[in-house]
């Protein structure tokens, strides 16, 4: 039990950023399930509290309106907290600058505010599998947290990857130079009721027809409730400071299996399977044309993206299980059933 002991008591104040989001709201709910009674959420004035309402009906949640771009708001939010769960991030849908501003600058502000706190016991920064490069990993190999992170994330052509890689680096710098105890949690593809698109690891509908790029690759899914619990545990378990932890479920489907289930249970649509050598060739040609044409087509398909998403590597969750005592409580079959049911009710969107 001592090894599993919590670093802070359940009545210690904790802060959750991004609490109004798909994953953040589940983290707040999971904190409540773990007995935390003083949960503080920083939400932008523009944020909708809809996702938090179910939790707020049953528990007291302290919602502070503010913006992570404001150092004053950050100071106010972190005051006296023992654990910070930092989930807020830029999605990268608008631009590199926007993703960076809302992931890295905001994280810096939060870390600056936190470093003066004598109460802080852990800073849990939510990262992503998107930061892994996989370039040096053999196809089909199962990867752990030692997998290299993108050294030139700007070349991935993906603002989210760039921002998350820079955020991870910043958190590491603050941990080393300023002694902030941190954990990096890297979820795979978080899914569940509320997600409407299909991850690009499976394919892309950018050309008007769905190109199935994932083939027999195992898709690193993590059901939102499972992921939320792993995040909560990362904030309270002893002995994980400075660690990176992959969060991914067990018994995962291949891309082909997922697509078949999706078409059976949600909506039938036409897809074209693209074999792995062909997807590599597509990415290499696209990348070369983008460079030659000076960006007439943006480099959204490139070899770095292929290595990260379509090469066929799987990920292990052994470290998270070992260090956190975590296990995915919702089996993948049940998670997919709930997910597909919600899509049938709300209407799907193919990416």
């Amino acid at each position, binding site marked *: 039990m001592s090894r599993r002991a919590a670093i802070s008591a359940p009545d210690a104040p904790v802060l959750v950023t991004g609490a109004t989001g798909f994953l953040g709201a589940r983290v707040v709910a999971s904190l409540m399930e773990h007995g935390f009674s003083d949960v503080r959420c920083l939400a*932008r*004035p*523009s944020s909708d509290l809809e996702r938090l309402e179910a939790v707020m009906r049953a528990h007291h949640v302290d919602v502070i309106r503010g913006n992570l771009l404001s150092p004053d708001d950050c100071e106010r939010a972190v005051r006296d907290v023992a654990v910070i769960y930092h989930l807020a991030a830029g999605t990268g849908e608008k631009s590199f*600058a926007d993703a*960076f*501003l809302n992931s890295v600058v905001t994280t*810096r502000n939060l870390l600056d505010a936190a470093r003066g706190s004598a109460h802080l016991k852990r800073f849990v920064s939510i990262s992503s599998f998107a930061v892994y490069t996989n370039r040096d990993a053999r196809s089909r190999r199962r990867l752990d947290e030692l997998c290299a992170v993108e050294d030139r994330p*700007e070349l991935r052509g993906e603002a989210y990857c760039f921002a998350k890689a820079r955020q991870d680096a910043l958190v590491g710098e603050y941990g080393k130079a300023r002694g902030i105890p941190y954990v990096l949690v890297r979820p795979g593809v978080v899914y569940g009721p509320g997600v409407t698109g299909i991850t690009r690891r499976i394919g892309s509908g950018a050309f008007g027809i769905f190109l199935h790029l994932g083939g027999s690759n195992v898709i690193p899914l993590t059901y939102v409730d499972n992921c939320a619990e792993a995040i909560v545990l990362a904030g309270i378990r002893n002995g994980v400071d400075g660690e990176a932890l992959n969060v991914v479920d067990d018994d995962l489907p291949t891309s082909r299996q997922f697509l078949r289930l999706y078409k059976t249970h949600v909506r039938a649509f036409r897809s074209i399977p693209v074999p792995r050598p062909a997807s590599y060739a597509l990415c290499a040609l696209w990348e070369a044309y983008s460079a030659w044409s*000076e*960006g007439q087509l943006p480099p959204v398909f490139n070899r770095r993206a292929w290595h990260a998403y379509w090469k066929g590597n799987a990920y292990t969750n052994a470290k998270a299980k070992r260090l956190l005592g975590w296990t995915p409580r919702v089996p993948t079959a049940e998670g997919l059933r709930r997910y597909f049911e919600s899509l049938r009710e709300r209407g799907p969107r193919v990416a």
Partner: protein
Amino acid sequence: MSLRVAIVGCGKIADSHVAQIRRIPGCEVVGVCDREPLMARQLADRFGIARRFEDVGELLAEVVPDVVHITTPPQSHFEVARRCLEHGCHLYVEKPFTLNAGEAEELIALAERRRRRLTVGHDAQFSHAARRMRELVRGGYLGDPVVHMESYYGYDLGNATYARAFLRDPDHWVRKLPAGLLQNVISHGIARIAEFLGGDRAHVIAHGFVSPRLRSLGAEDVYDELRVFIVDERQTTASFTFSSAARPILNHFRMFGSKNGLVVDERQQTVVKLRGAAFKSYAEQFVPPIVFATQYLANTAHNARLFLANDFHMDSGKKHLIAGLYRSIVEGSPAPIPSREIVMTARIMDSIFEQLGDSASLAWRKEGVSC
């Protein structure tokens, strides 16, 4: 052409500036500046730019750029531009040029005193389609004078989540502009009218309101619908329509002269000629559709040729505007956008915002009463 360029303001729009500057042979981005050092760093890192600064004064003193691109929020354009001009730099200022015509006139006067070139980021006027249209107008296709113009500028507020995020964030820099959303986006649509207006003044009648969609999202103070009527000293008239509600999202400019007309579709990059003379009898019902079909096919072929020639980038208008500015600096020729047009655009916008802000009828508009 060899110019040393600096960027002040490292947000979203700065990316496209750096990307297009790098396409102009001999020109180099030598420094970037942002009050937020991390933002300056991310831009410099991604594009391999050697120097980055937090302070404009340090940038100007240490890098000594020939040209500065100002890509900060509009509230700071005037002050940053003034400092750069006083330091002897030529300027590319993102739209809107300034917050009002008074500031625009002051900057232009300073640039003239210092013999510096400046331009404003109305890059849509330098797209392939816009430049083809200009050639036709200069070649006399419309006849003289221009009788009437119609400028349609549609705006997609995005899905409800994005719209709500913008609307509920009072700290968003667009919300903090004196005339809000309209001030940030309408200058493209106004400037293409101003280019063809005569004289220095125009009579403006404006009517603005909140669309039902924004009302349903709880926004009572963000005008996203605007209709404007403009008359210049020569009785050339123009209408401007800005709408977030109308579908399709139009980005059209229509010109009618004494001989013929032209329709430019900025989104589709097409230029279509409207023949002034009618065909005889039933031919008017059968020949023009064939002529239009032929024109659209020709537009498709033209766009395909540009794409294959590697000159059909999303920001190709920006590249041609920047290249035009740089050429004017090196050759001492006039800047690509005349100062008169910059000021006229600012004056029309001032007049629109003045009417929206002070109109006695605003109250009933807000209450949703119509007659």
